[in-house]
């Protein structure tokens, strides 16, 4: 199984890796997992940017307390200022242009869902473009409207025109949480591969989680199996409750 940092070409200092895609496809999960993979694989500073202005719960900022102390120390987290963390208003962190321009760090950027989420980030387009960026679209074909080629194409085209950033590749993250079967993952990969083939984009990773990986991975075709990376799951209801949970 591949280390996630390898799936994304072992990013270098000064690069920005942007995750966009339809809502609920797993952008936040893959962002946090890539950042964790990078701190395992490199000594370079890694910055994790929460630029999600769309969803009110289950954002990167809500998951950070699930990091170990060591992980939290190694990651530089960029999020909206504290007093606005849970405000229902679309705010970006301060000094974002400067942070996005740094040549010293690898940046992993989690943007909000759909065209709206990436559209909000388009205001930083020039800074992101200057930073040797890669943008990946995360897709879960078991989300509503994503189970047919037309829906996938419409989604990709909307995100491209709204974000005005070039798409580097696709990430297949088809899952039904713990109920995911090998068939689900395979069909998800096949659909994302077909989308990539028609749009000239590679599928760079197939994501699985420990909840179902052992029943799934050995049953995939070689094309899909060769791209598999394991991700740690952060977004689960029982992980998000506890007396300290103040959303």
């Amino acid at each position, binding site marked *: 199984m591949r280390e996630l940092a390898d799936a994304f070409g072992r990013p270098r200092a000064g690069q920005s890796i942007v995750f966009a895609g339809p809502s609920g496809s797993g952008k936040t999960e893959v962002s946090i997992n890539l950042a964790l993979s990078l701190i395992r694989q490199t000594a370079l500073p890694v910055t994790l940017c929460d630029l999600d202005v769309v969803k009110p719960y289950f954002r990167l900022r809500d998951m950070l307390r699930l990091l170990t102390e060591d992980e939290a120390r190694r990651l530089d987290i960029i999020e909206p200022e504290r007093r606005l963390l849970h405000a229902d208003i679309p705010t970006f962190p301060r000094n974002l242009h400067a942070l996005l321009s740094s040549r010293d760090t690898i940046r992993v950027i989690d943007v909000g869902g759909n065209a709206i989420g990436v559209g909000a980030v388009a205001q930083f387009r020039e800074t992101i473009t200057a930073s040797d960026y890669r943008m990946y679209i995360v897709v879960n074909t078991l989300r509503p409207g994503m*189970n047919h080629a037309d829906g996938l194409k419409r989604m990709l085209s909307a995100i491209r025109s709204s974000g005005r950033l070039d798409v580097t590749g696709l990430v297949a993250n088809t899952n039904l949480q713990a109920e995911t079967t090998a068939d689900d993952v395979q069909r998800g990969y096949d659909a994302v591969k077909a989308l990539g083939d028609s749009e000239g984009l590679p599928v760079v990773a197939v994501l699985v989680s420990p909840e179902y990986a052992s029943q799934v991975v050995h049953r995939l075709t070689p094309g899909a199996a060769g791209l598999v990376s394991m991700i740690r799951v952060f977004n689960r209801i029982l992980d998000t409750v*506890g007396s300290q949970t103040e959303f």
Partner: protein
Amino acid sequence: MSDKVLMKGAEALAEGAIQAGCRYYFGYPITPQNETPEYMSRRLPEVGGRFVQAESEVASINMVYGAACAGVRVMTSSSSPGISLMQEGISYISGSNVPCVIMNAMRGGPGLGNIAPAQADYFQAVKGGGNGDYRRIVLAPSSIQEGVDLLVDAFELADKYRMVVMIIVDGLIAQMMEPVEFKTRIDVSTLKTPEWATVGRHGRDHANVITSLTLDAAGLEQWNLKLQAKYAQVERTESRIEEYQMDDADYAIIAYGTMARIAKTTVRIARAKGVKLGLLRPITVWPFPAKQIQAYVGKLKGTLTVELAYRQLFEDVRLALCDKMPLGWYGRGGGVVPGPQEILGAFEEQFGKGR
């Protein structure tokens, strides 16, 4: 491949309503349920329905009133402060004896509060809100799948009793994602326009008139007695509860929605420690399943009511059980959600080790 999809609660409840035959939705955005109107705005036109984003919640509920008078399956949704704005309309709809479904994704209050999950609109949902002697059926799912399944019942119950049916969830159920399956699909062409609907005379010798206004006192009292008879029938026949690990239970947690789901984990932890704890989970909070809970008098040594609110559900538990057993309570407010261990801690504090 399974027939399941991975959906946010707020999206799944929208699709669930459409599968239940809802073709009209009027609403106004508010977090944490914006995915419901967003989803409806995309899907309803695909199935020949109508979506209108109203200029306010007051307008939304009055549009719902209008569609309800036309005898179609209609829904709105909102979150706490938005539902507060709808109370006048809910009273009018109830007073006019017409059906509709309303979803409340409860958030922290009072006032503007915050966007975090809460159950503090319990009183508003089950006891009042609007003026006058009216009731509405209130369903409280504790998973996305259950919410989708209950929506079919919600529209059926609304039509059967010509009542407002409210689905209450908290922000967590609205925002989390789970695999969900749509098992029932109502063919809207089989839904008949009711006799009473205000859709033209169609050859009848009189026009239907729907109003909540009755000027003479005796007439309005008769109207009220008719409503009361209906509510009494609903109380007799429609209350529902889930009884979890209750066969040999010495104690029970009483909780609904998200809190019940977390309390199930508490029950499992307690049982592993040898404490015979069970869970009584009201699925309808109005009518409150008092009889089902009263059946445990003499069998239980006590109950712990747990809620994301301050002694609201507890009030109905107390009305049901009075002083028939020790009644404990634990709750958090303002959007803080207690975990299973915290609930167990509250249980042990109030009932000792439970042995």
